[in-house]
C-alpha cells in the first residue's frame, strides 16, 4: 500500500467529523459515508499513467468518473444472487430452509436482502418476484396473498434505503405478477424499482396493460425488450439497479463512465476527437477498470469468503464489467459547433449521424479490449449508457436528448433513440412523462411499447406527469421527499439527495410531457 500525505489524512478526518455532526444524514447514511471516507485513504490499485489528469477534476473538465466505487473495492459493484436457487435450497449460512408457504417465502427473502452487498450497501437486485412467489399464491386466499405481498413491498421500501434496487416481472403472465402490479398500483413508493420484461410472443395484452396502468400511477414498472436482452445475454439475464442488464448469479465488478462532452472540449475537430482524444481516454479507462477487477478477483478475497459465492448463489465467472458513458449529446453538439455547424443532437440528421459514428467507435474499441475475468460476456465489458449523478451539471445522461430539446413529436423522439439503444446490453433507457389525466387511454402507451420492441428500442419508462413518485434518471424518488430534504428534514432513502441534485442540476422536472 502506498504512502499518503498527512495533509490528506487530516482533510479526510475533518470530513469524517463533518459527517458525524451532520443534521441531515440519517444514521445509516452517516455509517456509509464514514466507510467511504475511510476507504478513500487506501492506495492499493496500480493506476494507469495519465488517469489522474482525467479522473480527479471538476465536473466541467473530468473525462473519466468512477462513480464512488472507492479506492480498494471490497465487493463487486453490482451483485445478482440466484434467488431461485435460494428458494429451492435455502441457505446454510443464514440457517434458512426452503420456504413452504408465502409467509416463509417473503420472510426468507427479506432476511436474504440484508446480506446482499453492493456499491450502495443495499441489494441492487431483489429477484424476479413473480416467478419466486407464484408457486405460493396458487392455492391461497387471494386477499391474504395481496396483503402479505403488500407488506413485503412496504418492508422493502422502508428498509432498503436506496432506490437503486430492482425487481423484475414477466415476460409471462402469472398470478403473482398481477398481484404485484395491483398492490404496487395502490402505493407510491420508490423501492423496489420494477421492470417488466416484454416479449411479443410471451407477454399478454392483459399483463402489459396492467403494467401500463400501474406505471401511470406509480412510475413503475419500466418495460424491457426481452428478445433483445436474451439475444445478447442469454435467457438468464436480469434488470438491476437503474436498468442494467446482467447475468443471474453474476453481476458487474465495476462501472466507470466516459464524460464525452468534456473529451470533446479537448478535441480540435471531429476527426481529432474520433481518432485521437476519444481512443486515448477509452484506453486509460479500460485499463483502470482492468485493475479494479484484478484487485477484486485476486486480492479482495470476496469470491473466496462471502457466503453468496461459497453457497453458489453467485459465480465469479458470471460477472462482467460495465463500460459506461454520459453526454453523447453534449459531445455531438460541441463537435458540431467546432465544425461551424448549427445542427443539434436529437433534431438534426447530421448531428445524429455523428452520434452513431461516435458510438460505433466506442463499440469497436470495446470489442477489441479483452479482460480475462469477463468470460460471461466473451471477455469483453458491456457498454452502459449511464444516467448521470446529482453533481452533473451540463452533462446529459447516456445517449439521451437533452431535456428542453426533445423533438416536438414523440415519433421523432423514438426514431432518434432507436438508433442508440442497440449498443447497450448492460443498460440504457428513455423516460416519458405522460399526461394521464387528459389521455385516459393506457392502450396508447401499450401501443408505443409494442412498437418500440419491434424497433430495436431496449427500455422505456413512463410516469404520470402529476404523480408524486417520479423517475429521476433511472431510479425513483418522491417529489414530496425532495421537498422535505430541501427544507432540511431527514429522509430515509439516500437516493432522495441524488434526486434533489438532478432536479436542480439536471432539470428533470422539465421533461417534455407526452
Amino acid at each position, binding site marked *: 500500500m502506498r504512502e499518503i500525505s498527512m495533509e490528506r489524512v487530516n482533510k479526510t478526518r475533518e470530513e469524517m467529523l463533518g459527517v458525524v455532526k451532520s443534521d441531515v444524514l440519517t444514521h445509516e447514511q452517516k455509517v456509509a459515508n464514514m466507510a467511504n471516507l475511510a476507504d478513500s485513504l487506501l492506495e492499493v490499485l496500480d493506476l494507469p499513467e495519465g488517469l489522474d489528469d482525467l479522473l480527479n477534476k471538476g465536473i466541467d473538465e473530468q473525462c473519466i468518473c468512477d462513480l464512488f466505487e472507492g479506492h480498494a473495492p471490497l465487493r463487486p459493484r453490482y451483485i445478482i444472487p440466484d434467488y431461485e436457487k435460494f428458494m429451492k435450497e435455502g441457505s446454510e449460512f443464514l440457517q434458512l430452509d426452503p420456504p413452504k408457504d408465502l409467509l416463509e417465502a417473503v420472510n426468507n427473502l427479506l432476511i436474504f436482502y440484508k446480506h446482499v452487498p453492493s456499491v450502495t450497501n443495499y441489494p441492487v437486485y431483489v429477484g424476479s418476484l413473480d416467478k419466486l412467489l407464484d408457486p405460493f399464491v396458487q392455492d391461497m386466499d387471494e386477499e391474504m396473498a395481496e396483503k402479505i405481498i403488500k407488506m413485503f413491498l412496504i418492508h422493502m421500501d422502508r428498509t432498503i434505503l436506496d432506490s437503486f434496487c430492482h425487481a423484475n416481472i414477466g415476460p409471462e403472465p402469472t398470478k403473482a405478477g398481477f398481484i404485484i402490479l395491483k398492490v404496487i398500483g395502490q402505493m407510491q413508493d420508490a423501492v423496489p424499482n420494477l421492470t417488466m420484461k416484454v416479449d411479443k410472443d410471451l407477454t399478454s395484452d392483459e399483463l402489459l396493460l396492467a403494467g401500463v396502468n400501474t406505471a401511470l400511477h406509480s412510475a413503475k414498472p419500466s418495460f424491457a425488450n426481452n428478445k433483445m436482452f436474451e439475444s445478447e445475454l442469454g435467457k438468464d439475464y436480469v434488470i438491476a439497479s437503474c436498468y442494467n442488464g446482467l447475468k443471474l448469479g453474476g453481476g458487474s465488478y465495476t462501472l466507470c463512465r466516459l464524460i464525452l462532452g468534456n473529451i470533446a472540449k479537448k478535441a480540435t475537430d471531429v476527426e481529432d476527437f474520433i481518432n485521437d482524444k476519444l481512443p486515448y481516454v477509452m484506453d486509460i479507462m479500460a485499463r483502470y477498470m482492468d485493475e479494479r477487477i484484478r484487485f477484486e478477483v485476486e486480492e479482495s478475497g470476496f469470491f473466496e469468503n462471502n457466503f453468496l459465492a461459497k453457497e453458489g448463489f453467485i459465480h465469479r465467472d458470471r460477472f462482467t464489467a460495465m463500460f459506461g458513458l454520459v453526454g453523447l449529446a453534449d459531445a455531438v453538439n460541441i463537435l458540431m459547433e467546432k465544425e461551424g455547424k448549427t445542427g443539434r443532437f436529437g433534431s438534426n440528421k447530421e448531428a445524429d449521424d455523428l452520434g452513431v459514428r461516435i458510438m460505433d467507435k466506442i463499440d469497436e474499441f470495446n470489442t477489441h479490449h479483452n479482460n480475462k475475468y469477463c468470460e460471461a460476456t466473451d471477455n469483453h465489458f458491456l457498454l452502459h449508457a449511464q444516467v448521470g449523478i446529482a453533481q452533473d451539471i451540463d452533462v446529459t445522461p447516456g445517449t439521451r436528448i437533452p431535456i428542453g430539446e426533445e423533438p416536438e*413529436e*414523440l*415519433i421523432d423522439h423514438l426514431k432518434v433513440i432507436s438508433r442508440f439503444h442497440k449498443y447497450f446490453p448492460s443498460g440504457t433507457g428513455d423516460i416519458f412523462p405522460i399526461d394521464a389525466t387528459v389521455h385516459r387511454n393506457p392502450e396508447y402507451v401499450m401501443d408505443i411499447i409494442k412498437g418500440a420492441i419491434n424497433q430495436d428500442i431496449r427500455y422505456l419508462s413512463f410516469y404520470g406527469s402529476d404523480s408524486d413518485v417520479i423517475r429521476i434518471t433511472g431510479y425513483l424518488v418522491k417529489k414530496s421527499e425532495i421537498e422535505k430534504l430541501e427544507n432540511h428534514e431527514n429522509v430515509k432513502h439516500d437516493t432522495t439527495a441524488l434526486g434533489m441534485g438532478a432536479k436542480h442540476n439536471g432539470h428533470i422536472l422539465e421533461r417534455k410531457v407526452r
Partner: protein
Amino acid sequence: MSNSLKVPVNRIIPFSSVDGPGNRTAVFLQGCGFDCKYCHNPETRNLCVACGRCVQECPTGALTLVDNKVIFDYNKCCKCDTCIKVCKHGASPRIRWMEPAEVLEEVKSNMPFIRGVTTSGGECTTYPEFLKEFFRLCKDVGLTTLIDSNGSYDFSKDRELLEVTDGVMLDVKAYDLNEHINVTGTDNKMVLQNMEYLASVDKLFEVRTVVVPGLFDYEGTIAEVSNKLSAYKTNIRYKIIAFRPNGVRQEYRNYNSPDRAELDRLAEIAKSKGIKDINII
C-alpha cells in the same frame, strides 16, 4: 381519377391518444358544414378564399399571394397561429392538397407504434371517395380505420365506405332539434338517424357530447342518447367531454367548464340508462 381524390389536409397528428382506442395517427381534413359555437378548431371549417389578410400579418413571411392563391412555406412557419387568428373566413392557409397514397406515406412513418388511423376535421365525410381509397390502403398495411364525424353524411347510403371503416365516432351535439340548430346552425335529423343506423350495423364505436353549461340542455341530450343506445347489444362508448375554452373563438369563449361533480352526475345518468362504457374527458 386520381386528381379528384386530392383533399385539403389541415394537419396530420402522428400520435394521438384521444381519437379512438390505442395510439393512432389522426388526419384532419378541411371543411365542415356545421358552425358549432364551441368549436375548438374553427379554422378547419372553410376553405381559403385568398383574401390575403394572413399574408400581410404573417411575422415570418411564410405566406405569399401568388396567382390569387395563398402559398404556404412550411419551413418558414414559426407555428404562432397568427394566420388562423386573423382569418375572417374560418379557414387556414396552411393546407396541403394530398392524395390518399400521399397521406398513407406519412402515416406509414409512424408504424409500428400506431394501431390505426382516425380521420377527423373539419368534417372528413365531406370527402367520401378519398376516405374509401385511403382506408383501403390503410387496411392493406394492417391499420384499423375510424371516422370522427358530425353525423351529417348519410352513412346508410354508402355501404362501400362502411365496409372499409372499422367504426364511427359520432358527435351528438344536442338531441333536441332547436337546440341543435342553436349550437351548430343546422338540424340534427341525419345525426340521429346515423346514430341508430350505425348502432344497428355495429359500426358505432363511440358517441360524444360536449357539455357546455348554459348553451343547451346537455342532461336531456345525454339521457335521450343513452336511452336510444341501450337498445343495441353492442358495447358503445359514451364520451362525455367538458367544454374547454382552448382554441374557441373569442366571442364564444366565455362559457363555463362543468366541474367534475357535474360530469360524474351525467355519467351516472348515462349509466342508469344502461350505458356501460363511459369516458369523461
